[in-house]
């Protein structure tokens, strides 16, 4: 075997873990912006040590995560329709993402709350569409995937403009694209028409997020110090150690192995302490950032009253097949499409934020 191929055998796929610390009540803190910028979330979970029963206010926040909709066989041009833009895109935050499409094989579309419609399409579809786009960042020298971004709220995108007519023509006649879409809409103002009534002629289904609760007994928790991201030997654990531990807890990995064990040598990072019970909650569905911010706020308020816990965590998993991760930065699927983040909220409302992305992703903001 030649030397370069031996080196490639040891190569690790590119990945990034960004760790931040700050204070949740700091006026300059951008933690809520990071949540807002991550539009498509499929799983939100939190862990509270030393908690057996959830406070009522948190329970109602979870119950209020809200419905989302699944529309079957929806043509993309319906999202570009003048009526849709006026009723939903301009009057709140409208989220749409294609369901059961794989970004490394299929065409994918997504509508961001900023009014940007993003199409991630293969080369053939791109050439048939005839809309202006750019080659995907992760498609190599010979581009096989293209990204088309259409700003639906742009002033030049009014009903009679040439640009809009061309987009409509491309999506209606030139190359009609049809997908199953996940939709969610958030507005704070007056009630307008709802997605349910707007798409009543389509196959639309209102779905509720799935919520599960569980309690873990005698859990080993790492000792953390909010001002020590890197940890201190013998005193506190680092942010990477916590991130792995959290993965172990959510995957039900046993935490007390011996270093000589034949099966697994993973153990809870040192120093740690035994917690009598810990409360775990998982919400899965199409969860919009506005609701996650509310949940995050309520979790901060959890420490308003004296509690035994020193910290709690909130983890959010993004869709592996969404065309964007944070803001509009392109996202792809290499060996995995991971894009997730995790908050650790401390008793004094300091926070740690960990943002993790895989190979085909930009550095999180």
């Amino acid at each position: 075997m030649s030397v370069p191929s031996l080196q490639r055998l040891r190569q690790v796929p590119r990945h990034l873990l960004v760790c931040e610390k700050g204070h949740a009540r700091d006026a300059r803190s951008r933690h809520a912006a990071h949540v807002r910028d991550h539009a498509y979330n499929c799983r939100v979970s939190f862990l509270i040590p030393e908690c057996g029963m959830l406070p009522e206010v948190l329970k109602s926040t979870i119950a209020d995560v809200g419905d989302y909709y699944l529309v079957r066989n929806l043509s993309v041009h319906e999202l570009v329709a003048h009526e849709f833009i006026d009723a939903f895109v301009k009057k709140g935050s409208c989220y749409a993402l294609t369901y059961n499409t794989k970004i490394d094989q299929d065409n994918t579309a997504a509508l961001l709350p900023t009014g940007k419609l993003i199409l991630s399409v293969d080369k053939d579809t791109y050439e048939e569409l005839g809309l202006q786009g750019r080659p995907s960042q992760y498609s190599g020298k010979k581009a096989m995937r293209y990204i088309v971004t259409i700003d639906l709220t742009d002033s030049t995108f009014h009903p009679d403009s040439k640009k809009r007519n061309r987009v409509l023509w491309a999506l209606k006649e030139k190359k009609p694209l049809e997908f199953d879409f996940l939709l969610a809409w958030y507005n704070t103002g007056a009630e307008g028409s709802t997605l349910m009534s707007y798409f009543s002629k389509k196959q639309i289904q209102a779905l509720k997020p799935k919520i599960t609760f569980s309690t873990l007994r005698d859990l080993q928790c790492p000792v953390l110090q909010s001002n020590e991201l890197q940890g201190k030997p013998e005193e506190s654990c680092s942010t990477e150690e916590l991130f792995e531990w959290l993965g172990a807890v959510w995957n039900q990995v046993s935490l007390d192995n011996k270093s000589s064990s034949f099966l697994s040598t993973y153990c809870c990072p040192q120093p740690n302490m035994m917690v009598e019970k810990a409360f775990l909650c998982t919400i899965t569905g199409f969860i919009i950032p506005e609701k996650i911010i509310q949940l995050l706020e309520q979790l901060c308020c959890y420490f308003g009253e004296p509690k035994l816990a020193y910290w709690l965590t909130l983890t959010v998993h993004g869709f592996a097949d969404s065309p964007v991760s944070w803001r509009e930065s392109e996202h792809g699927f290499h060996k995995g499409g991971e894009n997730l983040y995790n908050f650790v909220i401390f008793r004094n409302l300091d926070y740690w934020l960990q943002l993790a992305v895989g190979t085909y992703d930009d550095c999180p903001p």
Partner: protein
Amino acid sequence: MARAEAAAATFERRVLRGAAEHQYLRVRLELPDGGARPSVAQLKQLVVSALRELHGEVGAALPVDILTYDAKTLSAILRVISSGLVKLWSALTLLGSYQNRRCAFRVLQTSPFLLALAGNSRELVLD
């Protein structure tokens, strides 16, 4: 857990590029119906023998941990040091038999973050 409640943390940001020590694989073993299912120790033995078959004694010495194993679904989460990912993956792919019966490892998901394996949107059934 936090001990001294020090003054509010000042903002700090660390970017770790490709720093993960380990890679994680969620795998499923496929076996023909009706036959003995391996115990967790046998599964580990199978993985080590797969490594030995393809990469020799040095390959067999690669530290692989079986973090979880569900004997019902024959699925497991494996942990391997980052530089050993390709070796482990290739060994699993090329393994063809268990106790003289045909078998195959399916790699369902892989990530440098164990937490990412907890939420796979590709397996999400919403409706």
